[in-house]
């Protein structure tokens, strides 16, 4: 199989999922690129990761109703779900449609939301937005249960426009006015949270959406130039057909899956990095009837995607989950189930608890001197563990090159096994110098495994490896 195909597959799996072992890349490359894209876009055809394994190893974890247990569940799922794009997209929507554990009625309510992202995240955007508008975790996070006919709270109405669908502006123009915010908020009065079934004696039930017609403003409203006695679903319908919504979602998809864009607040004035790519995605948005799956199909099959290798800084979640997938030994929820999420948090991303409703700042803002130390120490520690099955398999594959190999073969073999990383000349020279410090490398020797482990540790410590 051509190495170029495997490297391209490595790129796809890092972006559309959380990376894959070399063996998985070979299997998928044999299936073909476009076919793999289709498989990823149809998670419903893959076996879902069942909850009973969690329940068996961590009995009662859901009753803990805590952010720690939920983070543990999610990270376990990211590592092990064969529906890789489903989990990646769940992370994508979680970073945009932010709710946080710091402000929620119960930690598990966010799990309900994530399940909606899994269910609807690839489908029609209008439907997704409507589901979000009825999501108790979101209603509570943005105070919509406090928004009344006679006393409108604009928090949800504003963020829906600013952060979840249209964005403040594009091409130097504002996308909506303050009056539109007011009308939007008014349309959502009466969209609230129902009383939960009492907690005792059976434990906590999830909350549900409640539409209180008596608390809904029946006034005539003007929203984005249209007039009517609008309710929330009318507003969502109007939002979904705006060119600014197509632009906003396209840029988000591009920023998450293709290449780092400037931070979202800059989008009103800063044009897209690749205007043609955005235009293509916008066109697909409308032609497909707002379908995210169609947009992603176009995106993953495009040249702009295929050529964007290492154009993004890895998020902490990507760093940790990718590492665990490569190690190949986090297959059951073991006692250390809490550790991955803790590591991700130390690196600056507290899953299920984004810093603000704006979500995490991405790209190079993931890195500061403290989080860089966490990244490098974590990945070097995990990837240098020559006893883990994934690293063991890398060692064996590199050894297949011959009984005696050169420093280049050792280094290039490792880079290839990690998914086709390339190094700058300066870094490469340093790593080659180190790989060749003891002369010829005998793959049958006792030290060989450690030599591979050491090379992997240095590779994951490089600046280059911080990109995806």
């Amino acid at each position: 199989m051509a190495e170029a195909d495997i490297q391209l597959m490595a790129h796809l799996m890092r972006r559309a999922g959380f990376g894959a072992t070399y063996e998985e890349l070979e299997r998928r490359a044999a299936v073909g690129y476009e076919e793999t894209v289709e498989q990823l876009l149809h998670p419903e055809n893959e076996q879902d990761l069942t909850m009973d394994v969690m329940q068996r190893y961590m009995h009662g974890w859901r009753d803990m109703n805590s952010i720690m247990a939920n983070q543990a569940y999610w990270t376990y799922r990211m590592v092990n779900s064969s529906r890789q794009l489903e989990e990646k997209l769940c992370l994508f929507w979680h970073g945009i449609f932010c709710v946080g554990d710091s402000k929620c009625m119960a930690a598990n309510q966010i799990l309900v939301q994530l399940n909606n992202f899994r269910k609807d995240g690839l489908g029609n955007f209008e439907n997704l937005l409507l589901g979000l508008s009825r999501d108790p975790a979101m209603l509570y996070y943005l105070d919509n249960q406090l928004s009344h006919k006679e006393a409108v709270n604009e928090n949800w109405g504003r963020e829906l426009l600013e952060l979840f669908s249209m964005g403040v502006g594009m091409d130097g123009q504002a996308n909506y006015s303050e009056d539109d915010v007011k009308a939007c908020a008014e349309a959502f009065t009466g969209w609230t949270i129902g009383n939960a079934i009492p907690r005792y004696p059976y434990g906590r039930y999830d909350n549900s959406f409640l539409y209180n017609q008596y608390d809904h403003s029946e006034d005539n409203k003007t929203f984005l130039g249209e007039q009517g006695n609008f309710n929330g679903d009318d507003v969502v319908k109007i939002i979904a057909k705006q060119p600014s919504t197509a632009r906003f979602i396209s840029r988000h998809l591009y920023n998450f899956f293709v290449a780092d864009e400037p931070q979202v607040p800059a989008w009103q004035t800063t044009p897209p990095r690749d205007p043609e790519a955005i235009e293509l995605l916008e066109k697909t948005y409308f032609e497909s009837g707002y379908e995210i799956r169609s947009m992603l199909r176009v995106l993953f099959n495009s040249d702009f995607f295929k050529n964007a290798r290492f154009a993004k800084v890895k998020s902490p979640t990507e760093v940790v989950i990718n590492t665990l997938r490569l190690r190949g030994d986090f297959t059951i929820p073991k006692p250390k189930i809490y550790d991955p999420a803790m590591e991700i948090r130390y690196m600056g991303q507290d899953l299920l608890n984004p810093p603000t409703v704006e979500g995490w700042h991405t790209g190079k803002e993931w890195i500061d001197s403290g989080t860089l130390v966490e990244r490098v120490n974590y990945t070097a520690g995990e990837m240098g563990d020559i006893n883990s099955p994934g690293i063991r398999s890398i060692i064996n594959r590199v050894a297949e090159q011959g009984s005696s190999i050169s420093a280049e073969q050792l280094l290039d073999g490792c880079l290839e096994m990690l998914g086709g990383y390339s190094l700058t000349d300066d870094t490469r020279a340093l790593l080659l110098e180190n790989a060749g410090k003891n002369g010829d490398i005998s793959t049958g020797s006792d030290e060989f495994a450690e030599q591979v482990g050491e090379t992997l540790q240095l590779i994951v410590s490089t600046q280059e490896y911080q990109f995806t």
Partner: protein
Amino acid sequence: MTSTNQDPVLVVLQLSGGNDILNTVIPYNDPLYVDNRPNVRIPTDQVIPINDDLGFNPNMAPLKPLWDQGNMAIVQGVGYPNPNRSHFRSMDIWHTCEPDKIAEEGWLGRAIRDLDPNKENVLTGVNFGRGLPRALAAPGVPVASVGSLETYGVLTSIEQEEKRSEALNIFSRMYSPTMGQGPVFDYLSQNGMDALTGADILATAPGKYSSSVEYGASSTSQYMRNIAQVHCAGLGTRILYTTAPYNSFDTHATQMTAHANLITDVSTMVSDFYADLKEHNASENVLLLVFTEFGRRVHDNGSGTDHGSGGAAFLFGDKVKGGLYGEYPSLEADKLLDGDLHFNNDFRGLYATILEDWFGLDAQPIVNGNFEKMDFIAK
């Protein structure tokens, strides 16, 4: 700005989970205290009186000398309007000074930026414990987060010493600034070098330190020892922070035993820390702030107490004007706020006092407004 050993230094000890103020600084002569705490109450004869109305929890005995010497201030009734009883949200509010919206920048992150605007010292702020509390977070402000001072550094996961030093050598050459790799690469280089520099400097601290003070075994006590080590090493660090373990003060149940242990631990570590600084003649420029995100419910729940509002904060130091600040909130039923002590002192006034009267910074942009300062720092 050049830092010397004499620049003012702030140490923050965060008590996570909501410390029960009523059983810390106890209104032992108030019959309402007895009425409200049928189960979770310190018996009057065990209280260490500090005046006719208030007394310390008996486990605070190690702090009594500091109180008697006038080096301990108690800020009573501290909180903020419309108290939030979620730990995380309330702690966020204390960290960001933003009760009404969710904010990103921490007050101490901003203070570090103002103390060292040109980033001359990568160790101006140091956190002990892994993961940065939001109080210390601000874009572009480097803050080291030290999980273990003894082993802190880059590539510590490489166990064998010789291999690690080889790898570190390569790391420093890899991250040396190079031309033409683009702005993100340059940015990574800068942070890699900052991390190495910070780790190298911090690594010198334990070696420079010896002390007759033996700290307790708890992780927080050890972090307080680390703070003393870094301070005594004279690295120009101005803000040092640590946190009592994850929500340990959240005593909903079996509070009497749990809280006694916690208060013993905190009192001992603060007293040890102060003695340690004295031994090293390094106490004069240190202010220690101990705070919690809220107090607990006035009425007990049988074995513990639930989330409340108005709490108390403590300040220690040579330059602290000892005594009580603010008023002890009334326990009378009609003065309570949904069963909780009512705050009468905005925490942002406490911060403003530290920022302006201790650090000489402009507090308004850091705490997002103007709040009445308190007079606990000797001029």
